[in-house]
């Protein structure tokens, strides 16, 4: 009996709670103070993008020629533009366009890049060579120039901006996923899955793809910031949203004519773009530290 008691005393206590990676993530996430608050800001922005048109104090398209180019006041928190339209309302409604365009563009670019990267890394051989040479060719064009060229071919407009930004995102995603796939396909669990007769599709999507998720989430967050900048640059150049659309880049483009007389017309949409991109970059930095610490110094 004595011996049994002694053995029991040294038996390690197995915690009843199951390990949850989600809980672990949130525990670490709260420690990333700046990134945490930036993620709250992004969450707010997403809510604003959804409900913006319903909470906007004024009609963002309705001109009011009696109050043109007024500075920020109690009535118009961010002032008015050259047609007397309330800039704050336009910013609220514009958040849907700016976030929508960049989210969609990055999502499409990521989808294309992930698929190409998985195929390229998993199968190797001539498929890998073709896909990688294709991405080399696309890398021969600087990002924004490639987007400008695509919009020049397709014509101006927000849909074409989404296509342009997603196309220039594809090679970066493909490279990233290919690298992780090359690493992943050499692992023991992939070998085990192969020996059990799992199909290529199953191995790629059920076994290798989840392994790339950490670095992918970080990269997607960073790319959203880049996409917002690219889309607003295209609108600024007159290749994106039409001038009457409350797109942040288009608002800034028109506002520059009034820089000397009513600088708030330029400052407000610029500040909106800056803070949004900043928030995505800070969240990206934080996510990298939590999810993908090995790339911290790369």
């Amino acid at each position, binding site marked *: 009996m004595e011996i049994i008691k002694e053995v029991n005393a040294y038996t390690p206590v197995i915690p009843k709670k199951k390990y949850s990676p989600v809980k672990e993530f949130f525990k670490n996430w709260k420690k990333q103070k700046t990134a945490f608050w930036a993620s709250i800001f992004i969450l707010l922005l997403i809510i604003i993008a959804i409900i913006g048109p319903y909470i906007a104090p004024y009609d963002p398209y309705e001109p009011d020629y009696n109050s043109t180019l007024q500075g920020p006041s109690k009535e118009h928190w961010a002032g008015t533009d050259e047609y007397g339209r309330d800039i704050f309302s336009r910013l609220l409604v514009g958040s849907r366009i700016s976030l929508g365009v960049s989210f969609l563009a990055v999502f499409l670019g990521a989808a294309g890049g992930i698929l190409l990267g998985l195929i390229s890394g998993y199968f190797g051989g001539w498929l890998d060579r073709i896909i990688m*040479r294709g991405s*080399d*060719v696309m890398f*021969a*064009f*600087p*990002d*924004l*120039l490639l987007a*400008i*060229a695509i919009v*020049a*071919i397709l*014509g101006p407009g927000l849909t074409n901006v989404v296509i342009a930004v997603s196309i220039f995102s594809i090679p970066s995603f493909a490279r990233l996923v290919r690298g992780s796939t090359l690493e992943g396909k050499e692992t023991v669990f992939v070998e085990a899955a192969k020996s059990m007769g799992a199909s290529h599709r199953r191995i790629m999507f059920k076994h290798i793809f989840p392994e790339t998720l950490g670095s992918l989430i970080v990269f997607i967050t960073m790319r959203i*910031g880049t996409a917002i*900048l690219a889309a*607003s*640059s295209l609108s*600024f*150049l*007159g*290749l994106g949203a039409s001038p009457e659309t409350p797109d942040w*880049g288009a608002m*800034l*483009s028109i506002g*520059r004519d009034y*820089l*000397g007389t009513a*600088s708030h017309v*330029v*400052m407000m949409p*610029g500040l909106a*773009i*800056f803070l949004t*991109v*900043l928030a*995505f*970059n*800070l969240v990206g*930095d934080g996510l990298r530290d939590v999810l993908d610490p090995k790339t*911290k*110094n790369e």
Partner: protein
Amino acid sequence: MIPILFIVSILIFFFTHLIPGDPARLVAGKDATLEEVNIIRAELGLDKPIWDQYITYMSNLFQGDLGTSLKTGLPVSEMFADRFMPSIYLTFMSMGWALLLGLLIGTLSAVFKNKWPDYLGMVTAVSGISMPGFWLGLILIQIFSVQLGWFPTGGAESWKSYILPSLTLGAGIMSMLARFTRSSLLETLRADFIRTGRAKGLKESVVIPKHALRNSLIPVVTIAGLQFGFLLGGSVVVETVFSFPGMGRLLIDSIAFRDYPVIQAEMLLFSIEFILVNLIVDIMYSMLNPKIRYAS
């Protein structure tokens, strides 16, 4: 590099021909008859099959003939002559600012890690990456041109005209370089040879610039080179903000007019520049890193 350039030239040629609108109609004008449009089409060689047009284009290109602008009727090479150098000066000046300020901020941040210069430096860096170039440009114009009157609002008449556009264009890369310099330097400062240097009694003013910074420069140079494309793309926006008579602004004007010989030549030139810079970075990388130099 040459096969990639060859594919790039094919892609650019075929894709510029996909730009909607009939260039012959554009040159002939709205009121021209169909016969006149057809004559111009034949003059421009647009009635030939597309592969034939490509061969003609490439053989002309090797003889230095980049085609003729549909808008101005001038040879494209002549249009580039006035604009190429200002754009090159602008790009290199931007890279100069980016390297100078980026290395300085990055070094100060690493040396004073977790102290106020570090926080200030990193806030500047993350803000610089997130700031839209066109917005920063407009803010600089408002402060330094409109209010203080120190620099012109646009053009490329004197060296003063280059200051604000180059600062605007270099801001993004400067921020990136500052972050990379900081992390690279922090890693180097933990190395054994730094500890040895300090143990020998070397002053920090020798350890940091001579031993640590030099060894931290390898990834920084790579990033600087890779980001050169960012400058080329960014120059289109910055030149538009500052009404700068460079290649970027010409591209936007050409797109508005669908002046495809100019668009085609510019895209090709930008790609060649970009590929060449990446090649130079590869060479510099091996020069800076003896491990690679001796291995090859």
